């Protein structure tokens, strides 16, 4: 490189500044939604093997009682989100329109709905015992990935890590649940970080928070004592700053090797919501039976952050918050990477960070005319991983899917969608990439 690299423009931002739409909800305290008449607890709401039911139809269950055990190492237990009767264990429609086994609980509205759990002293527990507790509590990544937390925290002594990264970026537009959790569950979050430090053996923890949340940064900084191994770092706000690979680069200047794991470069990352849940639930001996969900979007009458029991049907949530619009797109998760909901019976799962109701105007706007690629390079400048979406898109149009993976790192793409959003020709780039990956997977199988 030498001389030529001198001409490279100042490090491009690589990402986008989307309208964040967070103002509607970020100032509102977390509220609690009532219990729906029926809760649908999917057995596969995490990455890995589905849980195995340990209740029978007709059985009475108490809120917080274990109703399914982990189906393997990469799997977690499930607990009753409310007291009531097991009405069915059957196939139910899930968020994507697919079907999956679920335990249906008819909620006993007369019950006190006190969550069961025995407070426990965690001080004397070993690393393995803590990990087992976390698996038993049903804990998964609450940022959206729903990867079993005990697997991710299980750092092998052969490959030690130096830093635990805590992801408080919440870069997806509309979503503010992590923001509110950082403000309202700050102590629990710090307790969770302490536990995670103990388990992983990392020497220090860095909480990365986008600089558009100064109140959360100040609050946490105020709570952390001077000698603490935990530090808060404000990071620039852009999408997708909160993507694992991107935040790792921002905070530590390291990169996850292609196809590898973050632990290979001495770090691991947890979402603030997950660690706050661990810090809150583990000492009380409780389990993950509810989560904070941002319900927002132009079609929602009372947007906000709500504590919603796992298994609450989406339709019930919408009924509670009020929504309008004839043609509506419902999104589970953030607007950039979340999924369109196929039906209103689908349950809120452990990985559902947001429920968004987009309105007609937004949808009409999206239906733009598509032009051929004019090679403007906007996507190349927007790709956070410095891939070449332009080249990938041209190859996708020719269905050269294998070539996309071999030469242009298709499999590194984590589908953030920046390329699609900035394309002046309105080419559905990331959508093409998903198809290409699926075809490649199928061919390999």
């Amino acid at each position, binding site marked *: 490189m030498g001389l030529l690299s001198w001409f490279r423009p100042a490090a491009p931002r690589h990402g986008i500044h989307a309208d964040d739409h967070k103002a509607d909800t970020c100032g509102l305290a977390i509220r609690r939604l009532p219990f729906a008449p029926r809760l649908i607890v999917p057995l596969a709401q995490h990455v890995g093997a589905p849980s195995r039911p340990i209740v029978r139809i007709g059985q009475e269950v108490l809120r917080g009682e274990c109703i399914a055990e982990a189906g393997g190492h990469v799997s977690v237990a499930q607990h009753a989100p409310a007291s009531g009767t097991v009405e069915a264990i059957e196939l139910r429609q899930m968020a994507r329109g697919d079907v999956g086994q679920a335990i249906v609980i008819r909620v006993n509205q007369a019950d006190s709905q006190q969550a069961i759990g025995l407070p426990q002293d965690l001080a004397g527990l070993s690393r393995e015992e803590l990990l087992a507790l976390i698996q038993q509590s049903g804990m998964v990544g609450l940022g959206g990935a729903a990867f079993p937390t005990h697997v991710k925290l299980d750092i092998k002594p052969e490959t030690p890590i130096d830093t635990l990264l805590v992801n408080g970026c919440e870069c997806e537009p509309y979503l503010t649940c992590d923001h509110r959790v950082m403000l309202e569950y700050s102590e629990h979050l710090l307790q969770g970080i302490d536990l995670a430090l103990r388990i992983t053996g990392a020497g220090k923890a860095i909480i990365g928070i986008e600089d558009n949340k100064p109140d959360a940064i100040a609050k946490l900084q105020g709570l952390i004592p001077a000698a603490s191994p935990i530090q808060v770092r404000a990071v620039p706000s852009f999408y997708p700053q909160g993507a694992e690979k991107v935040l790792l680069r921002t905070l530590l200047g390291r990169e996850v090797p292609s196809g590898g794991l973050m632990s290979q470069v001495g770090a691991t990352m947890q979402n603030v919501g997950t660690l706050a849940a661990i810090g809150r639930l583990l000492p009380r001996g409780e389990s993950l039976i509810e989560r904070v969900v941002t319900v927002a979007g132009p079609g929602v009458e009372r947007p906000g952050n709500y504590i919603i029991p796992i298994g609450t049907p989406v339709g019930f949530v919408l009924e509670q918050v009020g929504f309008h619009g004839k043609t509506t797109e419902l999104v589970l998760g953030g607007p950039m990477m979340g999924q369109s909901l196929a039906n209103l019976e689908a349950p809120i799962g452990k990985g559902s960070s947001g429920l968004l109701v987009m309105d007609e105007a*937004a949808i009409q706007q999206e239906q733009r005319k598509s032009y051929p690629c004019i090679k403007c390079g906007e996507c190349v400048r927007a790709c956070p991983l410095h891939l070449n979406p332009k080249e990938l898109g041209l190859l996708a149009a020719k269905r050269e899917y294998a070539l996309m993976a071999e030469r242009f790192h298709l499999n590194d793409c984590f589908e953030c969608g920046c390329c699609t959003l900035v394309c002046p020709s309105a080419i559905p780039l990331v959508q093409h990439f998903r198809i290409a990956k699926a075809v490649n997977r199928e061919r390999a199988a």
Partner: protein
Amino acid sequence: MSQSHKKPLIELRSSPHLRPQLRQTPSVDSIMRNVVLALLPICAFAVYRFGISALALILTVLAACLLTEALFNKLGKRPGSLNDYSAVITALLLALTLPPGFPLWMGAVAGFIAIALGKAMFGGLGYNLFNPALVGRAFAQAAFPGAITSWTPAGVEGRFVEFIPSTLTLPFTKPPEVADWVNQVAVDGFSGATPLALQKFAGEMTAAGELFTGMVAGSLGETSALLILLCGLYLIARRMMDWRIPVGILGSAALVGGLFYLIDPTQYPDPIFILFSGGLMLGAMFMASDMVASPVTPLGVWVYAILIGVLTVMIRLFAGLPEGVMYAILLGNAAAPLIEQLTQPRAYGHKRSKQRKEQA
């Protein structure tokens, strides 16, 4: 579950679910529309300088380009692409590279070639390897060497009522010599040469002020450097043009030109003259920056721009031609895919050397 609301019609689509950020990234047709908008003042100024001959030439080329585009849409059974303005841009750029008295029928042929060979043959918008306007211009240079070097002075009296004699030449006939007409109408001392030709072949320099305001002989678009600069800045300000391309071209041209000027000021023109004479400003701002035919990688854009700037100066100073912008840009276009290949940014999580090997 009780449903108190009427069931909404649910739309399904794969993410992202946000509407496009039109503020951040305009659509293709709005980019093209704005390029046309930015070219209009330059065209208007050309008409002001050269009168109805210039106007007729612009309109003829425009008609030829649009008809050709429509024809190939029909032949290729492609959806109509006239409303994306890309053919209009090609037409205006091509017209701006032609001399004011260029016979209209030749302009029409050049317009046809620009769209047919420069664009449609490659598959239409987005697939051309070269800037279509320059393909048309290169063809005209080869096919009509006489007509394309017949210059007339700017600001001739009566230019708004009378055509330059060569303009209305019948197809496939030789245009009349404009020298006599020029002698009649021109102010004293007009030799029928552009500032570049004067400099190269006669060693005469044109004042920078004249170049800047554009009241000199030359093709329609070899006009006021100031006006072109302003129009280009408009596009840059709206983020519809990559600023690195004009900056790279003009910067490298000034640098290389300045180097030679320092070596021998009597033989070589000064860098100010290099920047503001001929088609360099128009080429750097509006032709080399054609997104389709330029590289997309950040480093590649600089390499491409510098290549064009250096080539332009080299052709002007050392080749037999007074002007080199057209060939420099066409060569730059030709090199663009290779430049892009060699300047792929290092992808996240990959080592550069290994990536090179994979892509080789």
